[in-house]
């Protein structure tokens, strides 16, 4: 009889290292593919695992093989109507495909190589060019566990959790309880001995009995496994907290695809951050050019419009949304605004006033990124004035992906202490 061995408990994923090698080798292509995937994703779904495809020709493993052309003769199964000498119009792609299993690697073959990235791998690539500090990367990648808090004692556990004082208390109680009869008898004997006249023959007998009682008490174990107590920890669900995130973006003609992509990454990063801190997150998309409107995500990123830019409209709309749907007693409000910095000159002071007097007192945090290479314009100036008054406003000018994180740095740093 042959031995049958259960190997299922052996290490799985022995090819993990080979996969890492693969990803490292095609880092550039994978990163590109991840960037494409991000573009197609909703902000709230940015941190999912993904099927990624990269061009297959890049990872071709070349060997010498026959190419198409020349004369070849193949045998095929399933003849129905042909007889020798028949001629057949050459089908597209070739009739002799795969005959004999020797399909040539260049003849057929998909143009894309698809594979799967886990959530962690995906985020790793997403973060790669955004220059996040490692600590923040881990912070965002690890799915927050529910908290474990002390929760009384239990009778089993690991030695490191032994509650010594509790155990000793139990031990004492047990010893007292188990020796109660003996101790009572000893007390009786002591009383009796006192009443006896010296030289009474019963005294020796009582002394012997007393001795055996004392020995009995001594035999009770000082500590028993019954006494052991371990500190217990219970899993406490995270506090139920909800947050609403307003994404405000300028969609006037000057915001091109590249700028929108930067804005999207900025929103995703903020959302990932909120995801760690709040149970429930709502996202509200506010787009504006000369007028502001609440839209869905698709429209937010994809429809283009032209026209002038009035920022205050968007701020006012946000404010009214907060008032109507997200009362600040129940919601933590975060606002992320992305714009190329254009605004009507007259409008910028209004923006500052709206911020300082109305919005900033109501929101947890307001972040503003200006995606522009040129000199800052008046909107930026006014925001800086607001910043001087209120601390929960973060401003940043973004030219490339690596510029995004610094804008949020303060927010991350603040929350990490909590």
């Amino acid at each position: 009889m042959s031995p049958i061995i259960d190997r299922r408990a052996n290490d799985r994923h022995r090819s993990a290292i080979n996969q890492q090698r693969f990803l490292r080798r095609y880092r550039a292509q994978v990163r590109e593919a991840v960037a494409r995937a991000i573009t197609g994703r909703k902000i709230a779904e940015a941190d999912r695992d993904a099927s990624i495809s990269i061009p297959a020709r890049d990872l071709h493993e070349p060997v010498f093989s026959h190419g198409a052309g020349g004369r070849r003769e193949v045998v095929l199964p399933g003849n129905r109507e042909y007889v020798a000498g028949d001629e057949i119009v050459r089908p597209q792609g070739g009739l002799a495909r795969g005959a004999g299993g020797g399909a040539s690697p260049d003849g057929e073959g998909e143009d894309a190589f698809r594979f799967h990235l886990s959530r962690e791998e995906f985020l790793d690539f997403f973060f790669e060019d955004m220059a996040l500090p490692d600590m923040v990367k881990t912070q965002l990648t690890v799915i927050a566990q529910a908290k474990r808090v002390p929760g009384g004692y239990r009778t089993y556990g690991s030695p490191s959790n032994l509650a010594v004082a509790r155990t000793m208390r139990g031990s004492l109680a047990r010893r007292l309880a188990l020796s109660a009869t003996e101790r009572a008898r000893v007390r009786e004997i002591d009383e009796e001995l006192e009443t006896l006249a010296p030289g009474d023959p019963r005294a020796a007998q009582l002394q012997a009995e007393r001795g055996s009682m004392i020995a009995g008490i001594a035999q009770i174990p000082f500590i028993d496994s019954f006494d052991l107590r371990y500190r217990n920890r219970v899993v406490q669900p995270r506090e139920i907290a909800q947050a609403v995130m307003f994404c405000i973006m300028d969609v006037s003609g000057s915001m091109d695809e590249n700028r929108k992509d930067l804005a999207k990454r900025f929103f995703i990063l903020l959302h990932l951050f909120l995801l760690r801190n709040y149970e429930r997150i709502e996202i509200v998309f506010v787009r504006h050019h000369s007028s502001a409107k609440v839209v869905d995500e698709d429209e937010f990123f994809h429809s283009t419009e032209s026209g002038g830019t009035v920022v205050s409209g968007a701020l006012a709309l946000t404010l009214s949304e907060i008032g109507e749907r997200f009362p600040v007693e129940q919601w933590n409000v975060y606002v992320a605004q992305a714009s190329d910095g254009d605004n009507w000159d007259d409008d910028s002071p209004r923006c500052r006033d709206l911020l300082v007097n109305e919005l900033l007192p109501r929101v947890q945090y307001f972040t503003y990124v200006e995606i522009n290479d040129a000199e800052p314009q008046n909107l930026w100036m006014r925001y800086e004035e607001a910043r001087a008054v209120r601390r929960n406003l973060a401003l940043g000018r973004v030219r490339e992906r690596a510029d995004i994180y610094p804008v949020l740095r303060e927010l991350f740093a603040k929350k990490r202490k909590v």
Partner: protein
Amino acid sequence: MATPVLTPAQLEPRFDGPIPSVLPRQLVRPLPGGSEWTFELVERYEREIARVAGQYRLDTYPNQIEIISAEQMMDAYAFNGMPVGYIHWSFGKRFLTTEQHYKRGHMGLAYEIVINSNPCIAYLMEENTLAMQAIVVAHASYGHNSFFKGNYLFRTWTQPDAIIDYLVFARRYIAACEQRYGTLEVERVLDACHALANLGVDRYKRPQKRSLAQEQSLQKEREALLQAQVNELWRTLPRREPDEKPEPERAFPPEPQENLLYFVEKHAPVLEPWQREIARIVRKLAQYFYPQRQTQVMNEGWATFWHYTIMQTLYDEGLLPDSVMMEILHSHTNVIAQPGFDHDRYGGINSYALGFAMYRDIRRICESPTDEDRRWFPDFAGSDWRETLDFAMRNFKDESFIAQFLSPGLMREFRLFCVVDDDQAQKLKVSAIHDDSGYRLVRDTLARQFALSEREPNIQVVSVDVSGDRSLTLRHYRQNRRPLANTYKDVMKHLAALWGFTVRLETVNEDGSIESTHECRVEKRKGTAQPDAAAWALTDAFR
């Protein structure tokens, strides 16, 4: 109106006639059925299968059956089914492909993988049902196993006792090289060697058997020795006493060499010893898989024939419950399906189907030959089927097996026909079909279709310019005007990286004319040890 109901009494066996010599099914207690397998059940099935295999005189290595999970199966896929493999990105790529296909339901995983080792290791998937475990034990542990042990190619080219040790050695050696020379350097060498792996096969010399310890000590010796020899070959320092008259130039290599990787390993001028060793590892593994590539039809057909025959025997003995047998037949039928060429799911000729049909056909020709069979196979029609089958399994490869044993009856059954695809003709032409005038052509063509020498281009090393620019010249012997696939340029780059100097590719046409096809020059890399760098420097200084 009462519905007729079968009572238990009606189900009892009734003996009306004489008692048959074989016990009727109901009197033998069948093995337990159901779809869940347990270790005890697999053991009980395995014991019965082993008994039947013994009756059929299947000669096998000892078996070792291992149960693994789907994830481990995908790992095994990535390493060509081997239990150990060295580290390389291409295995990661293969794993990702498998995983993607499997998870999206594009493909099921194999029910088993079997390794040509001694003892013969078969991996069974835990997801299999009991019936599947039974069929794969018969298929792998008795079918493939006996093929590995019996077939001449495997006997000649593989060392089942040593292969696992060698893989462990390879893994350690390559890991050590990565430590010493960096992963990128090692990867570069491996990439290049992989490109040449198919041409890294000896066809005539027989390898020796070695253990891990021997392999390691030999490797050290080889390292020193090889380097010394190579240096001598490329020696360009002026001799002390120049010869009176120059010797006629010696051609090198004296004869064309078919084993490219071996040639590189032994003669590449600027490879480091560890790089030669890596070339050797890739070459050895290619050699190990070489028999498998030549016996797809025979090997799979043999295993399929035996799982079918063993299961059928167990069923006839009354040991297999009907439910299990039904599942076995269902799965067997799927395995041997052969869609026609115009079917959506046609993917070439199914090795399982063709091989299985051929072995069964041989058995039929032995047991009940027709007149046609007697005409075509006079030497074995009507002989003992077990012996004929054993002879066929031992002494052939796909190419010769088909040429020898494919019968007209089977060609009719598969409705095989032959098509000529000539790029100079407007249309494809049917050159032969399954009829009297076509049998031989169809059979020969099919046999050639499975010949490695037809499937892969014939490329050999013809010369090295030893005294000149050290360039290496390959020749592609063209057949039927078939060109090389475009990937040859990339392969040439890899070859040039290994050779260290210019490599050329020539094409020999069928009329004997030679044309130069491709040249891949090498920029001299800085920091590469060149045996005669000092000599060059000297010459320059004296100019």
